[in-house]
């Protein structure tokens, strides 16, 4: 057991005690910190050294707050609670006396699951789950002392087991490369075979024993066949350079540089998070250039995942929150007057004598004084301070600030709070549910303190003055926000009652309003700020596990229901009139994917009534509605439900995320029955999760509907543009979301995944037969449209929307083929309500059946499967933690970055690497063949005509850097053009094909023949010696190989020139030095003065010149003719960059039109078939007027 990394500070005393169970240890942590306050910050942060079962904590409730940022990047605090039944505070807990038996499951890597039971001395078993496990690597926060039992340590700890070995994905290009390397091996063997057979024939043809055959020490010669056998292996040694081992090293270097360039791209940098794009997989950069299908998550990927409360429906009445909607539209304001606003605000005083709805006079009075004090108490927050807070997840200003709806406010004010919320009011219930039915943690040092002190004293009461002033604050804040929003709201509801008092003070406000109007939106923003100032003055910070929860809590807060503290057994809420309401939490039925809801069971402190508040997806909750006294309430409930459903549908249409809230009064009897059921479930060892879930389901029934909320999740920047660009690039974009179809379809329209003219196939079926027939019918219908390679204008583009249940059926093996066939013909596919497993199943099916390259992009833990299943997984590092990023190959900050990442970097990486690989094969074959052709003139004896060192150096030094630089820096088309003409992406996908490989090999053979036989014919019959003959061969090869590369290089930068010249320079300088210094070295070559002698001979230069020209003439001519007669679109695009912007626009337009009508016109410019084209997907996306992006590509 490895506990070596235990933290040890000057304040901490760590003990390790061997415990009753062999092989386990108890880790006790005593941190006698100086007490709460600023000084505790240091001791507050402590990293857990091993997986600990939490036995006790300094918290009276046995709670320990944990930050798991080290594990998953989530900065939210998570609660862990001590094992029930042992609960004594840490101070009283004596490890020496701990003699329970802990039985836990085998170490595994599941961070979210843990199964264990503790058998107490009295043989009672207590089931324990993940909620009591402190994982190694997490940070303990806000808890002074915890005491735990080490269950897993060292390599067995969950975090260590989670360290996956770097997942090795092999790129498509590398797979093709390996195939070609095998071809090279085959080529090598055949060449060696030729050598062996040649040697045999040569030996056989000799009439006697010539003097140049060297016998073995015994003086006899090997038989020709034996000699040929040996020669085969000699040839392998000689010609093994044919296998481009150096290629693999070069590829790694190139990929490193590509990763460097990708991560250094300013366009892929996100200033808000101060994050660059991360390349987590270093070896699949070029796969970005091969993508044919993109699978995207919706929430957090297409949308911002900044959940903002938008509107709600309470008891069947809709509150549209128009002001809030306006605010959301104006959110991205840069506000230079910010500081001034903060300074001015507090000075402005409102005279008393004003109430929201003509309420009690006392409150009015108080409100004036309260408002007077408040602004001073709240120091203006600078932008820096705000951004510091912004680092805490889910607390961006956008989400915090909710402008209340007047009508709803009015309803709240009507509630009689005098009885401490005793009255059962649906509005009160609704907001209470909003505030408490969640797992939001209020996390500040003060909150912590407050909670503890409250709990220890056991007192719920608060002084009346406190309540009053608090209420005054609240009312003041509301009033203020209303006043500020008036210019906008008045137009919307001019004769609203609520506004009546406001009119009276219009004179006072006018001045301010004028200023607000003058500066446009800043006036509105002033109002926001003022609202926020109030909120901030509470110094409360909510940390939620999901952004939806935070949004709801902030919404509740806007209406005065402020969540003050949350403990495991209690929750404190401040009501609008200021009273602090402490509710005893009897149980929390946490969220799970099956139930799709969560509940909180609380006991009302005053009435003593037990109430179950449930929050969840509408379709699950609507089914559970009902009432034990159905007869009386039926009509009422039914109309509420019907209205609410209507509103929900409307919300979904607007693309809002909907949640329903219900309440249920639980009787004592029911509770006690249920409680025992729950306890058994919790203590269960086997199948605990399902049992706990069932117990929750048992209680969650006969609920009565309170209302519903709509949360808006705005589209990220440039999402529609990005999707359109990806589609123009010939990539099919699928969206897989857990949301309901209505929401998803709405978002799809918003991000131009679906167009108005699209024929949308809606696949939703209850059973499999229906699903099958639906598939058949649709397929039949779709097949009727001709699958023209070019998107014919008249055909409707087909899009499919399929829900999770139907998808599950469609993915079954017998329907799979049909589904894939149909999906292939759809321009876009939208899968709704899919589970993470289904997401990955879809990706796998499409990837395997269609043999296409897939890219999955997502941001949440639910996308991890999909990201791992796809060929390229992209994680969006955003709101929902880091799991997606951890699983991904590339991590970006925004969906829009995908555009440049794929279209530009993907294209570049692939194009560069593909060209470099082909070049490497060519180079090796061309060079090795020189040695091979010589075998025909040396009796196939394996002689190297070039000094063996120079053969090695040739690949190692003289011709290694230029192709690597080519692979790193070549730029066939500029980034702007690639962004502007996404069509080029598709064309770049065929850069590496076997035909190109074989053409390169043939060219290599031709060039090597030229490079060998021109010197051969020149020196034939002369007195040239071996290495003098080899020198022009070597030199000519160098020039040919380098000039061949220079034909391939598309953009010559200074680096290119330097490297090329440098290579030639190094070649001559090093060989001259070698030949001058090496008199007797390297026998038998002894290449002394060889190059020098050759360089004194004019024939050498004549041979080099002629050979280089002849060797490169065909390729050069081919390039020239192809570029002139049938220029590739990439070349045309490159040419385009030279044109003036106006000419370019005109030309692009003509070109796009030309490619469409090219088949009819028969111009030679069109690219009729794209490489690897299959099926109906068009080579070019349907024609459209040139967009601005094209023209901007300057």
């Amino acid at each position, binding site marked *: 057991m490895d506990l070596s990394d235990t933290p040890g500070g000057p304040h901490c005393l760590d003990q390790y005690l061997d415990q009753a169970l062999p092989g386990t240890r108890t880790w006790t942590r005593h941190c006698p910190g100086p007490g709460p306050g600023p000084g505790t910050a240091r001791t507050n942060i402590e990293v857990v050294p091993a997986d600990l079962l939490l036995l006790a904590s300094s918290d009276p409730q046995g709670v320990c707050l944990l930050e798991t940022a080290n594990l998953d990047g989530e900065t939210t605090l998570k609660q862990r609670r001590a094992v029930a039944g042992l609960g004594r505070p840490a101070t009283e807990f004596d490890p020496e006396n701990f003699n329970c038996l802990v039985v836990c499951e085998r170490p595994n890597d599941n961070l979210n699951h843990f199964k264990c039971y503790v058998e107490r001395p009295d043989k009672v078993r207590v089931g324990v789950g993940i909620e009591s496990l402190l994982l190694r690597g997490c940070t303990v926060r806000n808890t002074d002392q915890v005491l735990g039992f080490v269950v897993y340590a060292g390599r067995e700890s969950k975090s260590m087991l989670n360290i996956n070995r770097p997942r090795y994905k092999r790129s498509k290009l590398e797979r093709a490369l390996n195939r070609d390397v095998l071809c090279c091996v085959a080529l090598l063997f055949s060449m060696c075979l030729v050598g062996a057979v040649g040697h045999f024939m040569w030996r056989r043809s*000799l*009439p*006697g*024993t*010539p*003097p*140049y*055959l*060297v*016998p073995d*020490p015994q*003086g006899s010669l090997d038989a020709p066949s034996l000699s040929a056998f040996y020669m085969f292996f*000699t040839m392998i040694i000689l010609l093994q350079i044919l296998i481009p081992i150096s290629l693999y090293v070069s590829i790694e270097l190139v990929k490193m540089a590509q990763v460097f360039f990708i991560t250094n791209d300013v366009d892929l*940098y996100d200033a808000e998070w*101060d*994050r*660059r794009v991360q390349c987590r997989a270093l070896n699949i950069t070029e796969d970005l250039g091969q993508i044919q299908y993109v699978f995207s998550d919706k929430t957090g990927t297409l949308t911002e995942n900044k959940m903002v409360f938008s509107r709600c429906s309470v008891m069947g009445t809709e509150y549209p929150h128009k002001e809030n909607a306006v605010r959301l539209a104006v959110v991205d304001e840069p506000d230079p007057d910010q500081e001034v606003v903060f300074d001015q605000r507090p000075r402005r005083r409102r005279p008393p004598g004003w109430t929201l709805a003509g309420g009690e006079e006392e409150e009015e009075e108080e409100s004036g004084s309260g408002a007077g004090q408040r602004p001073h108490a709240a120091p203006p927050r600078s932008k*820096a301070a705000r*951004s510091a807070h912004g680092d805490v997840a889910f607390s961006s200003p956008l989400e915090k600030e909710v402008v209340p709806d007047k009508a709803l406010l009015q309803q709240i004010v009507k509630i009689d709070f005098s009885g401490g919320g005793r009255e059962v009011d649906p509005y009160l219930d609704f907001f209470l549910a909003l505030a408490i039915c969640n797992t939001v943690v209020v996390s500040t040092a003060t909150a912590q303190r407050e909670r503890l002190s409250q709990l220890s004293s056991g007192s719920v009461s608060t002084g009346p003055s406190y309540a009053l002033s608090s209420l005054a604050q609240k009312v003041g804040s509301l009033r203020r926000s209303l006043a500020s929003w008036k210019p906008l709201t008045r137009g919307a509801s001019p004769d609203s009652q609520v506004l009546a008092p406001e009119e009276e003070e219009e004179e006072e406000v006018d001045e301010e309003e004028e200023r607000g109007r003058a500066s446009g939106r800043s006036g509105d923003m002033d109002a926001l700020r003022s609202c926020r100032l109030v909120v901030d003055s509470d110094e409360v910070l909510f940390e939620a596990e999901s952004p939806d929860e935070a949004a709801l809590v902030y919404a509740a807060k806007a209406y005065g229901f402020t969540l003050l503290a949350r403990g495991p057994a209690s929750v404190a809420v401040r009501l609008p009139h200021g009273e602090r309401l402490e509710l005893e939490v009897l149980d929390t039925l946490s969220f799970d994917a099956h139930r799709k809801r969560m509940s909180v069971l609380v006991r009302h402190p005053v009435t003593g009534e037990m109430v179950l508040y449930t929050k969840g997806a509408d379709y699950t909750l609507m089914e559970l509605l009902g009432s034990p006294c159905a007869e009386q309430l039926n009509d009422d409930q039914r109309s509420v439900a019907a209205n609410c459903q209507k509103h929900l549908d409307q919300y979904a249409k607007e693309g809002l995320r909907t949640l329903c809230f219900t309440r249920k009064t639980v009787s004592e009897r029911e509770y006690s029955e249920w409680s025992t059921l729950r306890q058994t479930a919790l203590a269960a060892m086997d199948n605990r999760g399902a049992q706990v879930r069932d117990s929750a389901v048992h209680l969650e029934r006969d609920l009565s509907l309170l209302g519903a909320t709509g949360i808006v999740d705005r589209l990220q920047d440039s999402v529609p543009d990005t999707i359109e660009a990806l589609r123009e690039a010939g990539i099919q974009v699928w969206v897989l979301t857990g949301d309901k179809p209505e929401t998803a379809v709405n978002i799809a329209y918003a991000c131009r995944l679906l167009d108005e003219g699209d024929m949308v196939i809606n696949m939703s079926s209850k059973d499999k037969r229906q699903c099958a027939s639906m598939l058949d019918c649709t397929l039949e219908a779709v097949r009727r449209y001709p699958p023209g390679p070019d998107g014919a204008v008249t055909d409707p583009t087909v899009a499919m929307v399929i829900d999770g249940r139907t998808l599950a059926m469609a993915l079954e093996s017998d329907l799979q083929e049909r589904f894939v066939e149909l999906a292939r013909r759809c321009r876009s596919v939208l899968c709704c309500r899919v589970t993470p497993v289904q997401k990955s199943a879809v990706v796998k099916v499409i990837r395997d059946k269609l043999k296409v390259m897939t890219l999955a992009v997502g941001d949440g833990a639910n996308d991890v499967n999909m990201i791992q299943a796809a060929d390229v997984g992209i994680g969006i590092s955003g709101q929902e933690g880091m799991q997606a990023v951890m699983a991904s190959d590339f991590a970006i900050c925004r969906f829009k970055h995908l555009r440049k990442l794929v279209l530009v970097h993907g294209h*570049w990486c692939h194009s560069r690497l593909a060209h470099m690989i082909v070049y490497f094969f060519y180079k090796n074959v061309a060079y090795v063949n020189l040695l091979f052709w010589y075998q025909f*003139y*040396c*009796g196939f*004896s394996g*002689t190297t*005509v070039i000094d063996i060192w120079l053969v090695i150096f040739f690949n190692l030094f003289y011709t290694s850097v230029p192709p690597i630089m080519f692979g790193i*820096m070549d730029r066939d088309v500029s980034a702007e053009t690639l962004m502007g003409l996404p069509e080029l992406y598709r064309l770049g996908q065929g850069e590496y094909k076997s035909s190109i490989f074989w053409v390169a090999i043939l060219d290599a053979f031709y060039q090597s023949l030229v490079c060998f036989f*021109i010197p051969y*014919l*020149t020196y*034939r*019959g*002369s*007195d*040239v*010696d*071996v*290495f*003098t*003959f080899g020198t022009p061969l070597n030199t000519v090869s160098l020039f040919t190989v380098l000039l061949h590369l220079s034909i391939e290089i598309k*953009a*010559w*930068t200074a680096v290119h020139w330097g490297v090329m010249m440098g290579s030639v320079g190094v070649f001559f300088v090093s060989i001259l030095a070698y030949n001058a210094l090496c*008199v*007797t070295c390297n026998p*038998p070559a002894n290449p*002394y003065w060889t190059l020098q*002698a050759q360089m004194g001979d*004019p*024939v050498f230069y*004549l*041979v080099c010149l002629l050979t280089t*020209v002849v060797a490169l*003439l065909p390729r050069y*001519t081919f390039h*020239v*003719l192809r570029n*002139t*007669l049938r220029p590739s679109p990439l*070349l045309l695009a490159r040419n385009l960059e030279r044109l003036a912007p106006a000419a370019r626009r005109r030309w692009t337009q003509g070109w796009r039109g030309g490619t469409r009508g090219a088949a009819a016109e028969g111009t030679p410019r069109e690219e009729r078939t794209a490489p690897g084209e299959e099926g109906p997907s068009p080579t070019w996306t349907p024609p459209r007027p040139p967009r601005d992006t094209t023209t901007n590509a300057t």
Partner: protein
Amino acid sequence: MSKEENTANRPDNTAFTQQRLPAWQPMLSAGIVIPGFVIIGVAFIGIGVALFVTSQNIQVLEKDYTGIETNSSCFKCTNPRVKNCNCTINFSLDKLFEGPVFVYYGLSNYFQNYRKYGASKDAAQLTGDLAYFTEPSTSCVPYQRDAKDKPIVPCGSIANSMFNDTFKLFQIVNSGNVAVPLDGKGIAWWTDYNIKYRNPTTNPLKNAFNDTVKPIFWPRPAYELDTTNAANNGFINQDFLVWMRRSALPNFRKLYRRITEGEYAKGLPAGDYALVIGYNYPVKAFDGRKKVVFSNVSWMGGKNQFLGIAYLVIGSLCVVMSIVMLIVYAKFKFPDEE
């Protein structure tokens, strides 16, 4: 948090990291390459003409003396049992063979480039290092030591197989045969003679070869290779040096002598000549042919028709290509060339 801290991760916005380095993007299209083709074509034709003319002016006279044909005068020497066989080949020149005339011996089907043959020498021994006289490199096996285990110097197959035919040239004039003086100086590479191969400093040279034996095929030891010139012995014997520089191709010639002296310095005048060959070297075992080559040289070496013709052909091809390109260019223009 200051502005800098906020953007600590911001990549550098430089032309290099953003891949915006200024670049020259050549467009290989017909219009652009026409001048290139024309220039290459013309230049090549020029070079080709010069080479061709030069090559045409070089005179070469080859005489095969293998003696395969039974009517050949050297036929009698092909029998390996005949020792110290001399044969004469007569030839006549009808015009002056311009000097300086180089005399080569040529061998065909002789693979001096055979891998094991090439390795079969001891470079250190050939630099005159006496340590390697007593202990020649194992690369010389089986010509490292003789049957009595005495070291062979120079060891190895290359030295052992040294060409040992001799040639004497006579002009037949009325008064009889006049010997044409053959100059054997400076026929090897200067670096071989002066740097790469060295004799031991022992004086006399013979002493250095004590306790060593001559290569098996050699008639005389290394220090007696040239009986007429004592300085031309040992490892710096010119004929030895020429032989040790292994030919790259199986059909080769090696320089034997130059005719640079006396009245023949200007060349061989027209007339009848007799070449007396000391026929020693057997070639039957490998179907080889032996010949004597008389040639004069130019700045580009010996006669070589190929290079001139190749330049002419490629030059013409380039000119033709430029015409093709012109037609292509006229028909298909690039948009920016309009």
